[in-house]
């Protein structure tokens, strides 16, 4: 209460103005009323306020702008000096520009310090967060894409070098990785794409294997025109494949009965019996709806099943060859086999060399060369070719796989047929030891091949089984390593389930029974091996 009294007394004292002050206030009020010179009035009023107000009432810049350096630091030396307008800071408009650092500098020291502490732009920070998230997604997606892209790039490299078998193996590896990724995500998150599929198709074509493109044909059926142009090379083969399939269907509809009749006649029919059919097929060939090359192949097939058809076989096969190298998947091995049967070894070898020119990694072509040499009794040359092929196979890219125990295994590109062929040649040279070593290699590569099992069984029988001795139950026994018994057991077991593919060859049985010699079968006999 006392404090209040004292305060009111103080207010009364301060309210009492001197005469001079009263005159001044009167002048100001008049000027305000007049309203003609507002600015002067306000300035004067401010001046009045400044003379009466406490210094504490002046707003401190520090409370507004935060941690700003002390005013005195940047104040002009002479505070009273009026700053020309063109020297004022363009930001605050109060202080002199900080021209010491640059004569054209637009800001004062205080504003400069404030600019140093400018907060980050909100949109900038937001974009940083968004880009960080997108980068993370992009990197993860890129990594997965690259894991599939790696083998694809590798395949492309082989393709450019003309190593088509390696290229195919590489692309197959990419497909395996793709299915693993899709399995992991339980969805089809990635696709090989039409461009990769085009490369796969081209590799198969170069590898004389148009038939293998069937898995990829569907991907091309629903493409738009732009995409079709992108993969025009593949489209050519896809169209060809569809064309072949349509012709095949039409042929089956039209000639299935005739074909079955000729097949079941077991060579009792003659060329004259199928002349009408051949004529009909020839007429069909003139229709552009059908693929004439494929029809030539069917004519060849019909001729192989009748007596006296040999002279026509070559004609139709050559027609097929003339149609283009894209048909090499049909004619290449067929022509080789035909010439070998006919004893035209030079022509057979020419065909093989042409196939090797198209794809130097075509191992089947090497096998035909070996057969040709073997049938000419040039066993040394055949074995030499096998050695060359083994070296080549080691250079062919094969993807690593993992076995049941999780160990990484590098698969060999060498097919079992090459060491099997070597084994036959050694056997013909009477070098049974080397023959057994070679067939053991073939057996280690593929234990489920009818040919290899037959030769394995035969060679072990010839080398290890005492023809005169019999076991208690009357069966022959391989007393050395049990190779014959094992092979026989495997073959019989497989034949039980897959009788179409697994059987004991009559010729092999004849050799084991002593009815035929090795030369009878492998040099002079039909081209079965």
């Amino acid at each position: 209460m006392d404090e209040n009294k004292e305060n009111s007394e103080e207010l009364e004292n301060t309210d009492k103005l001197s005469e001079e002050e009263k005159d001044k206030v009167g002048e100001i009020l008049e000027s305000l009323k007049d309203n003609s010179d507002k600015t002067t009035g306000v300035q004067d009023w401010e001046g009045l306020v400044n003379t009466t107000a406490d210094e504490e009432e002046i707003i401190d810049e520090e409370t507004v702008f935060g941690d700003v350096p002390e005013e005195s630091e940047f104040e002009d030396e002479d505070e009273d000096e009026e700053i020309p307008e063109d020297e004022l800071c363009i930001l605050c408009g109060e202080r002199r520009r900080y021209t010491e650092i640059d004569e054209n500098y637009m800001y004062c020291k205080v504003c400069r310090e404030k600019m140093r502490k400018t907060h980050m732009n909100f949109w900038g920070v937001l974009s940083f967060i968004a880009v960080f998230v997108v980068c993370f997604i992009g990197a993860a997606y890129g990594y997965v894409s690259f894991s599939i892209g790696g083998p694809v790039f590798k395949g492309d490299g082989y393709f450019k070098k003309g190593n088509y078998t390696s290229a195919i193996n590489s692309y197959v590896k990419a497909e395996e990785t793709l299915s693993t990724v899709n399995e992991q995500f339980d969805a089809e998150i990635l696709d090989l794409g039409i461009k990769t599929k085009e490369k796969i198709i081209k590799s198969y074509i170069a590898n004389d294997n148009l038939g293998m493109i069937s898995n990829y044909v569907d991907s091309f059926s629903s493409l738009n025109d732009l995409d079709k142009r992108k993969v025009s090379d593949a489209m050519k083969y896809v169209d060809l494949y569809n064309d072949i399939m349509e012709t095949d269907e039409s042929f089956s509809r039209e000639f299935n009965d005739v074909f079955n009749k000729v097949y079941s006649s077991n060579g009792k029919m003659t060329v004259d019996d199928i002349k009408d059919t051949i004529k009909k097929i020839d007429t069909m060939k003139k229709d552009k709806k059908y693929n004439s090359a494929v029809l030539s192949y069917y004519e060849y097939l019909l001729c192989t099943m009748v007596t006296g058809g040999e002279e026509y076989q070559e004609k139709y096969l050559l027609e097929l060859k003339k149609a283009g190298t894209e048909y090499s998947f049909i004619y290449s091995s067929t022509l080789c086999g035909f010439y070998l049967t006919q004893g035209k070894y030079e022509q057979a070898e020419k065909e093989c060399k042409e196939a090797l020119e198209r794809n130097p990694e075509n191992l089947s072509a090497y096998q035909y060369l070996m057969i040709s040499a073997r049938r000419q009794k040039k066993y040394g040359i055949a074995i030499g070719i096998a050695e060359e092929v083994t070296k080549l196979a080691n250079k062919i890219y094969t993807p690593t796989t993992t076995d049941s125990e999780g160990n990484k295994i590098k698969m060999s590109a060498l097919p079992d047929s090459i060491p099997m062929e070597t084994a036959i040649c050694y056997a013909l040279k009477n070098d049974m030891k080397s023959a057994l070593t070679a067939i053991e290699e073939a057996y280690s590569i593929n234990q489920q091949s009818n040919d290899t099992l037959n030769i394995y069984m035969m060679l072990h029988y010839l080398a290890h089984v005492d023809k005169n001795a019999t076991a208690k139950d009357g069966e022959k026994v391989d007393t050395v390593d049990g190779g014959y018994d094992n092979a026989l057991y495997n073959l019989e077991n497989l034949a039980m389930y897959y009788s179409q593919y697994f059987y004991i060859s009559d010729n092999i049985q004849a050799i084991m029974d002593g009815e035929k010699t090795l030369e009878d079968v492998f040099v002079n006999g039909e081209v079965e091996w």
Partner: protein
Amino acid sequence: MKVLQIITKILTFPGAFYRGFWEQFFCKIYNLPVENKKYFQMNEMCGHVEHEPLSKPSNSFWFCFLSGLMVFLAGVLMLVAPVINLFVFGIQEQVFKVLNYCLLYLGLSMMTNIFPSVEDALMMWEGYHKLGKAAKIIFAPGAFFMYVGAYAESFGITFFTNLICAAIVVFM
């Protein structure tokens, strides 16, 4: 020139914002006063941050280089998947095509904004000439690339080159 640059920046706004962010970030690192932190201004500073020049020549180089590098790296990370999937594989699955197109756009918007502003490039170039002989040799490719790139960007050339890249990835 200004109009082209502004259009480019608007069309590639994700990259422009990201570039602006890194420029401002490096302003903080070098304790530089930022005169205007608005990234989208309708002038030649569009997509950049207006700041005081750096005093040390090497810092001027690193300022331009590092902010560009960060944008470039983001662009690379975004572009790996679409380039593989669209250009190398030629994927057909619609959902993934859209995802890849989005990544391609974002990646190329980053790549369009890897260069500094002409003002920064001039400062950097000026600073480069003040460097020692050995430093000049080391910094030469980067400095020249950024200097030329900054002008290319101001004429909208980077936008067109990236547009061509996009066309190659999508249509080839």
